[in-house]
Every structure is written in C-alpha cells, then in structure tokens.
C-alpha cells in the first residue's frame, strides 16, 4: 500500500488542499482551526505541524474577522496549499482602510527582526504599554507558526495574507 499521502508528494507549484469561504464571524474560528489541526495531522502526519497550523489559522482569522469591513462582499477565504516541501496558509479579506494602513506598517516592522526577536519585542511592547493593543498576533504567527508572512493587495480593496513555512 502506498503510505505516502498524495498531498505530501512534490508538486511544481503550491497544490490546493483546502479552500473555504465564510462570513467574517468570530464564531467560526474555533471550528475552522480545529478542522485545520485534524487536516494537517492526518495529511502530513505530524503533531508539530498541526500545532503550527492552529496558531496560523487562529491568528490570521482573528485579524481578518476583527478588521473586516462591514459590507456584503467581505466574505473571507481560507486556503491551505502545499508543494510537498512547504505549506502555505492564505486568508483573503476585505479590511477597513484604517486597518490596512496599520497592517502594512506592522508587517514591514516585523520583517526587520528575526521571528524570535520580533516575538520578544512584542512581549516587551505589551509589557511597557499595558493599555495599548497587544499586537502579539502577527509576531506569534511567524515565531510559533514557523512561517513568513506576506501581504498582497488585490483588486476591490481585498488583501491576501499568506503564511508560508516548511513542512
């Protein structure tokens, strides 16, 4: 029997394994995260990857839900892809304009530090500014999720946050 799941075989480009669309509601996040955990555990066979997937899904969806514009076309899309060597989580959303500006700034700031340093810096910021928003989420995705983050701005004001890391 072939014990190598087809999904973990090499593909020349990211191969879509999961796609879903849903309204930006907090109530969905737990269910989607746990689905992602089981999916990654079953497909790739490692608990470590399943745990990383949970962090990436939870934090990216939280951001997307919190800052989605309140319009009919603000549906979120989550996809998980793999080329057999790496895994990609991508979340497409329609954020409000104010959030988009701060997201750009925060992602740029994150890239200047390695993931561990950036996470520690976020802890220090949270400790020094008890009344301010924690902004731990993106730094946590990079460090605990073991992924790099990028953002594409798409037509119609939509953005796509992609988290890509090794399997």
């Amino acid at each position: 029997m072939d014990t190598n799941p087809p999904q973990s075989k090499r593909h020349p480009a990211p191969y879509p394994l999961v796609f879903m669309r849903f309204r930006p509601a907090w109530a969905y996040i737990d269910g989607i995260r746990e689905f992602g955990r089981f999916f990654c555990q079953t497909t790739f066979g490692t608990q470590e990857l399943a745990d990383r997937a949970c962090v990436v899904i939870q934090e990216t969806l939280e951001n997307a839900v919190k800052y989605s514009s309140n319009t009919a076309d603000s549906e979120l899309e989550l996809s998980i892809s793999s080329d057999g060597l790496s895994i990609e989580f991508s979340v497409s959303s329609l954020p409000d304009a104010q959030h988009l500006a701060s997201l750009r700034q925060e992602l740029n700031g994150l890239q200047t530090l390695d993931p561990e340093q950036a996470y520690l810096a976020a802890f220090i910021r949270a400790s020094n500014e008890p009344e301010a928003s924690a902004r731990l989420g993106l730094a946590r995705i990079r460090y605990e999720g073991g992924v790099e983050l990028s953002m594409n701005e798409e037509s119609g004001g939509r953005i796509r946050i992609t988290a890509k890391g090794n399997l």
Partner: protein
Amino acid sequence: MSQFTSVPVPKADAVAIQVMAPNQVKLSGTITQKDPSSDLAGFFKALHNAALADKLGEVRADVSGLTFVNSSAIRLFVDWATWVKNERGQRYTLRFITSRNVTWQKTSFMALMSLAKEVLAIEQVS
C-alpha cells in the same frame, strides 16, 4: 483567612478554573474568545492583589491543561508577570506550571521568561 482562595472564580467559555489553597490556580481548556480580558483580567488582578495581601512567597499558575489560547490570552499572562515585576514592596514568585507537550506553552512562556525572569519560574510537566 486566605484572601487568595477567596477570590471569586469567573465563568469563562471553554476554560475551567480552580483556585486551590494555599497558592495555586489551575486553568484548563482553551481561551480563544475575542476579548478574554473581560473575563480573566480582573480575576488575575484579584489573585495578584490577594497574593500580596496574604504575603505569599509564590503563586503557582498551572496552565498545563490549557491546550490552546489566542494571543489576547497570552497578553493576560504578560500583564500578570508585569504586575509582579513592577511591584516595589514585597513580591512573590509567579511559577507557571506548563506542559512540555503543548507547543504554545513552550514558545510563549520562554518569551515571557526573558521578559521578567527575576519574578518568574517555569516548571514543565508531561
């Protein structure tokens, strides 16, 4: 009478909380609500104040059964560590009991330790 064990335990979604004499609080489950501070920030602050009032040398926060939390919940632990760190009078050691099998605990408490190692202790259980 111990103030620590008299702190009222909030009812929070998906997380079970127990306060045990003389100095232990145990949390298990998950914390993923949008604003966990509404349930838990006041509770942690009350435990902190009670520990100071009771002149406890150590508070044991057993989070080994917390299988997943969001970053807003991690912020609550940062805040608690910061309160202890910033205490000018007598202060206690905040000892987190963590699980070596739970990934988020390994990464986040290691980061927390580097933030306030003079007042924190991390104990790992299986």
